[in-house]
């Protein structure tokens, strides 16, 4: 996948948030809290617990379905960042070789189990975060964070990150395009030229940062980014948070997977 398609994909995440579904219309604060609870619960699972994590897949699947977000799109995004998780977890199968279970005649070591749990936790948390943005929009999330008491400086940073990520990507694209048009047949394509292009990008970015700051001062900026508050917490939002909390609590503290397994066995007999 090259740079251009990546860039337009970023814009797509953005456009998904324009939809009008039940999930989109929930209060951003409710969604931020629910996602936060979800992340904390998933991360709090012990190292070897894979089975316990499985029911949590329901959360992203439900959110994507109800929010009409294409699951394939989210999965692709998760895959793109997954090398990171693989890197973090790949050593445990070699370091932790105790056999903890035998599945279909094959011994399963504790290391593989913890590797699987790392991957699963990673997929769950990343997809939850992506879904939050896809159903709330990044500015919506920032606004919610601000209203939930996040320090203004932190929220401003996030907002700028979002706004100028696109500008920076466009700037980089322009530089690459201009360079591409005038570098022929291997000439002007060496590492030194590349290093200088990166340098140009850096300088342009610094210059731009300066100009943006000036523009903000011109419009009365004094540290906080004000916004017209239009958020209203409805009973639906409270119910949503409550149900999520109960669901997460149940999956965390009761062996739901085993229960379903036993139930299935019961029906089987």
């Amino acid at each position, binding site marked *: 996948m090259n740079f251009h398609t990546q860039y337009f994909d970023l*814009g797509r995440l*953005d456009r998904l948030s*324009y939809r009008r579904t039940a999930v989109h219309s929930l209060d951003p604060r409710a969604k931020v809290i629910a996602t936060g609870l979800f992340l904390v619960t998933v991360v709090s699972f012990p190292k070897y617990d894979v089975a316990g994590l499985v029911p949590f897949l329901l959360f992203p699947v439900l959110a994507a379905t109800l929010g009409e977000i294409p699951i394939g799109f989210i999965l692709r995004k998760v895959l793109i960042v997954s090398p990171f998780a693989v890197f973090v977890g790949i050593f445990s199968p070699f370091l932790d070789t105790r056999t903890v279970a035998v599945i279909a005649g094959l011994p399963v070591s504790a290391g593989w189990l913890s590797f699987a749990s790392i991957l699963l936790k990673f997929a769950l948390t990343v997809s939850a975060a992506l879904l939050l943005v896809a159903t709330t*929009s*990044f*500015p919506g999330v*920032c606004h919610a964070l601000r209203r939930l008491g996040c320090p203004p400086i932190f929220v401003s940073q996030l*907002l*700028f990150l*979002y*706004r*100028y990520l*696109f*500008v920076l990507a*466009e700037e980089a694209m322009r530089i690459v395009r201009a360079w591409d048009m005038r570098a022929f047949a291997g000439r002007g394509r060496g590492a030194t030229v590349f290093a200088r292009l990166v340098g140009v990008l850096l300088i342009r970015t610094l210059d*731009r940062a300066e*100009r*943006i700051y*000036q*523009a*903000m*001062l*011109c*419009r*009365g*900026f*004094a540290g906080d*980014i*004000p*916004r*017209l*508050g239009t958020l209203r917490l409805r009973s639906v939002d409270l119910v949503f948070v409550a149900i999520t909390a109960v669901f997460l609590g149940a999956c965390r503290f009761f062996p739901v997977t085993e229960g379903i397994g036993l139930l299935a066995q019961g029906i089987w007999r």
Partner: protein
Amino acid sequence: MSHHIIEFKEVFFRYPDGTAALRGVSFRIVHGESVGVVGANGAGKSTLLQHLNGCLLPTSGQVTIGDLNLTAATRGEIRRKVGSVFQNPDDQLFMPTVFDDVAFGPLNLGLDKAHVRERVESALSRVNGLALKNKPPHHLSAGEKSAVAIAAVMAMEPDILAMDEPAANLDPRSRRSLIGLLKTFQHSKLVASHDLDLILDVCERCIVIGEGRVVADGPSEDILSNRTLLEANNLELPLSLQRR
């Protein structure tokens, strides 16, 4: 009314790299005057305009806006009066949505919410941009960005307007409505542009800048019909005067 006066006295400005961009600029603009600033590329128009809102401070000489001398201490106050539109709208639209961006200034002025909303809607509809309200700026075309940048400044209802190439990316119809909009703005304004027809239409007075100096200053009709003067400054007669 003294508070809409703009006065430059022997203003010099040198960029940190040593480029002398302004070399002794002097002029005085009284309340309600509409002044065009023209000149070749690199003449110093943008540099001059950035002195109006204190983005740049003169290296020597004096800039007076209303009854305040421009210094590091007064520039905050001066910025409340002067609305500036920059040459590059991407520098100016920094909020995540068009609506939020236009609301940014009025909110910082401490207006109440209903009032802010009203100002945003009226400013956006004056630039034909009401439909863009919920879009993020990075999904706008260049001309739409310019239009929104203009609305963002108009929403603050400034006493003085400083615009750098406001019509650069606009299609003919949007350019027309910008001209109409500028004509309705009653207070002092300074417009830097290579669009000499726009200047002729909007400004009764015109200042020609060349190599950081005021080369000519007078009624737009006289200056913009002076072929020798214009050509000496890389400019040509406005189209509307060429036909005569």
